[in-house]
């Protein structure tokens, strides 16, 4: 054992790879893994978007015969719904902000050469990728993909004979989810250990950028939540294949007893939503952190209330584990229990409001630079408010019983969890693309993309609230049979046209992404004049992130417009500033 071996370890966790396979496919480098996650999510989001487009087309032209798919039967519609939800929630909203950008930028922003466990990091990506392949393969087996919704409620999800997609397709679905949980757990382990153990000298917890705080808290939520989903998934697999009755009560299919008895579908709902509600925050917290970052950078002002932001995120994460029952108000739960869940749910409004007012406080009287990342951050705040404000409505059992199975809920969670998180992903892409790929993205294409997406998504999801209040049930594939639904068809038509335009706008983004990689303007090391550590290193960063040294941090992450400073921003690595403000 040579001393030199250790000294090498102290700076580089692993040597730079030389072969193509180890460099781009089975890479240990967190930056490559981050980009792999990003492209996995990009693939998934286009698959998921395509499925939603098919649903929108079917809703307003139910008789249309589609190329490749043929006529859409009600069960096909449910299949589209299930796979759209599953792919979007797991492989986009959980994968891109945390696995993608978190992987790439958490180590750099805290001044570490890599993640704590690089091999585990590689493994978590490949397990997630395998989960995606298994999920997609469900489309191509006998019976097709499952139709039990992304929440997989038994007994529908537990009985192979319950529907066309419920045989092998549903098995693949459960296996894919279980694999995804494994990948997410390994990733969470890495994020937490890295944040706690690998911060550079001077990078105290309270000097971390809010993005790092968000990734850290998200990882804690993932660690506590995905294990529960994994165990529920294993129980479901046993119910499906080993004849157990954890979730399946005494049921008959076409008059035949199934052999199951005594199980409780509610048990699944409790386990699932104990994961499912924190999952909402797993999707949105990274976007919150990013939004805080962008608003500060592009307003040239320190973030308003840094500590309040941290504590608000922590309390959102904590409360997120206390409220799963609000997804189950319809399940016949005791009104007292429902009341407790309801109060806890509305309590989340408090830290959410703290965050929103702090964002507004940050841009107040700022010298705002309306760059494309800033536009998406502002869009995020807008969507967070308009999507979040319907939360306290749904948190009340009395209202929820009316609204639960209507489009109101669809509108609510798409605005807040779907589109708001996606805006976080877009903002992150436009903000960090120069660092990741060494070139700037085209600004005018970005603006077109922003305005089309903002107006388009509002046009799709705002009318859903009105549909819901008019008692338009969700998950229905045909609207023509019921008189009162028939009157709402024009609104559905409007939403489908809006979806066409919005989806077309996404191709601007896709084109811009690949075009800019090749032809974009060369990026400098710090194009946005930001203060955090990723902007102190080369563009793109070298294999060990900082080129052979570990940075030393002297300042907080949001030192903008500091009185007496030579520039309007002070890098985190600049010598200590006099804290006059």
């Amino acid at each position, binding site marked *: *054992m040579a*001393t030199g*071996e*250790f*000294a090498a*370890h*102290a700076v580089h966790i692993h040597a730079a790879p030389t072969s193509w396979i180890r460099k781009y496919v089975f890479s240990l480098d967190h930056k490559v893994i981050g980009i792999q996650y990003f492209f996995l999510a990009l693939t998934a989001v286009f698959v998921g978007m395509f499925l939603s487009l098919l649903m929108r087309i079917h809703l307003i032209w139910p008789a249309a015969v589609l190329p490749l798919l043929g006529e859409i039967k009600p069960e096909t519609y449910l299949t589209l719904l299930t796979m759209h939800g599953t792919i979007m929630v797991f492989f986009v909203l959980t994968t891109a902000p945390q696995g993608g950008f978190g992987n790439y930028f958490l180590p750099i922003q805290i001044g570490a050469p890599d993640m*704590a*466990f690089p091999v585990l990091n590689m493994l978590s990506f490949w397990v997630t990728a395998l989960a995606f392949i298994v999920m997609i393969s469900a489309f191509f087996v006998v019976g097709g993909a499952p139709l039990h919704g992304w929440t997989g409620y038994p007994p529908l999800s537990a009985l192979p004979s319950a529907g066309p997609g419920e045989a092998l397709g549903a098995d693949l679905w459960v296996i894919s989810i279980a694999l995804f949980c494994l990948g997410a*757990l390994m990733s*969470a*382990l*890495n994020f*937490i*250990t890295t944040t*706690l*153990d*690998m911060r550079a000298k001077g990078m105290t917890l309270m000097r971390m950028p809010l993005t790092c705080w968000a990734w850290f808290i998200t990882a804690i939520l993932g*660690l*506590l*939540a*995905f*294990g*529960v989903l*994994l*165990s*529920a998934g*294993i*129980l479901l697999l*046993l119910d499906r294949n*080993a*004849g*157990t*009755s*954890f979730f399946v*009560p*005494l049921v008959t299919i076409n008059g035949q*007893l199934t052999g199951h*008895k*005594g*199980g*409780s579908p509610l*048990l699944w709902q*409790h*386990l699932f939503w*104990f994961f499912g509600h924190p999952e909402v925050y797993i999707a949105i917290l990274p976007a919150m952190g990013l939004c805080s970052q962008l608003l500060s950078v592009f307003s040239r002002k320190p973030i308003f209330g840094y500590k309040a932001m941290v504590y608000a995120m922590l309390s959102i994460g904590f409360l997120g584990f206390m409220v799963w029952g609000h997804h189950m108000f319809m399940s016949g739960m005791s009104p007292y229990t429902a009341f407790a869940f309801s109060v806890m749910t509305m309590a989340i409004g408090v830290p959410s409001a703290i965050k929103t007012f702090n964002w507004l406080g940050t841009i107040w009287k700022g010298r705002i630079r309306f760059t494309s990342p800033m536009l998406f951050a502002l869009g995020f705040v807008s969507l967070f408010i308009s999507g979040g404000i319907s939360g306290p409505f749904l948190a009340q059992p009395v209202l929820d019983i009316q609204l639960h199975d209507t489009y109101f809920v669809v509108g609510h969670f798409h605005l807040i969890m779907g589109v708001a998180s996606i805006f976080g992903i877009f903002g992150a892409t436009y903000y960090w693309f120069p660092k990741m790929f060494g070139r700037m993205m085209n600004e005018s294409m970005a603006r077109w993309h922003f305005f089309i997406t903002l107006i388009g998504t509002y046009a799709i999801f705002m009318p859903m609230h009105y549909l819901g209040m008019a008692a338009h049930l969700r998950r229905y594939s045909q609207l023509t049979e019921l008189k009162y639904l028939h009157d709402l068809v024009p609104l559905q038509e409007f939403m489908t046209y809006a979806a066409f335009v919005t989806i077309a706008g996404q191709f601007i983004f896709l084109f811009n992404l690949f075009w800019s990689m090749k032809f974009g303007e060369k990026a400098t090391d710090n194009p946005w004049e930001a203060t955090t550590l990723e902007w102190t290193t080369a563009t793109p960063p070298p294999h060990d992130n900082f080129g052979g040294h570990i940075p030393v941090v002297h300042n907080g992450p949001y030192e903008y417009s500091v009185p007496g400073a030579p520039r309007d921003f002070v890098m985190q690595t600049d010598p200590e500033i006099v804290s006059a403000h």
Partner: protein
Amino acid sequence: MASITTAASTDTARVLIAGNEPPTPASLDFAARLRRARLGLIVALVAIVMIFVSYSSAYVVRQGLPTLDPRTGTLVRDWLPLQLPNFLLINTLVLLISTLTMELARRHAVRVAVAARKAFEPSTRIESDRTPWLALTTVLGVSFLAGQWLVWRELAARGFYVDTSPSSSFFYLLTGMHGIHLLGGILALIAAGAASLFRKCAASSAVVVDATAWYWHFMAFLWVYILCLLEFAR
């Protein structure tokens, strides 16, 4: 030297850093890697705890649920109390002994790693890293799993299959999940053993053995918990 080798390894690391001599890159690195491995292990154990917490809550909930008897139309319980095979006690004993051998292996590995660092000082004698503890732990771990297999066979012979009653479902589930996790520990032990056989860096193998040991202790604790749940919440 004596005080260093008898101390637990965190203390060792602390002594190495805070001792009279200035810290060398080697000592810093061993301490840092040990700390990182242990932190990672604690985080991983939290995830495993969540899995078994959810199974425990499912166990308690499912136990209290009645089911409809289609012949009489009344609500009945389908939870058949399960008489645990006595052989489980032998398995438990085997696992508890294995935690002792594991602890001996861990202390030895850390001692070797510390000694190897001191090897450059002429007065230090390098201890041999040939002790039976790692191999013995592996054998005991495999014996435990084999014993669990025999228990499963006995239950099946009594007519308790995985789908007979929710109580037997949970028995197979909990013991099976625990077995899978223990198998992971055995694989780590084999990896650590191979590393020391092939004379890999002592510090690396000490880090693996240390983390596996804490994992192993946790698995023994978890097993006792599962046994109590199955026995006292029949």
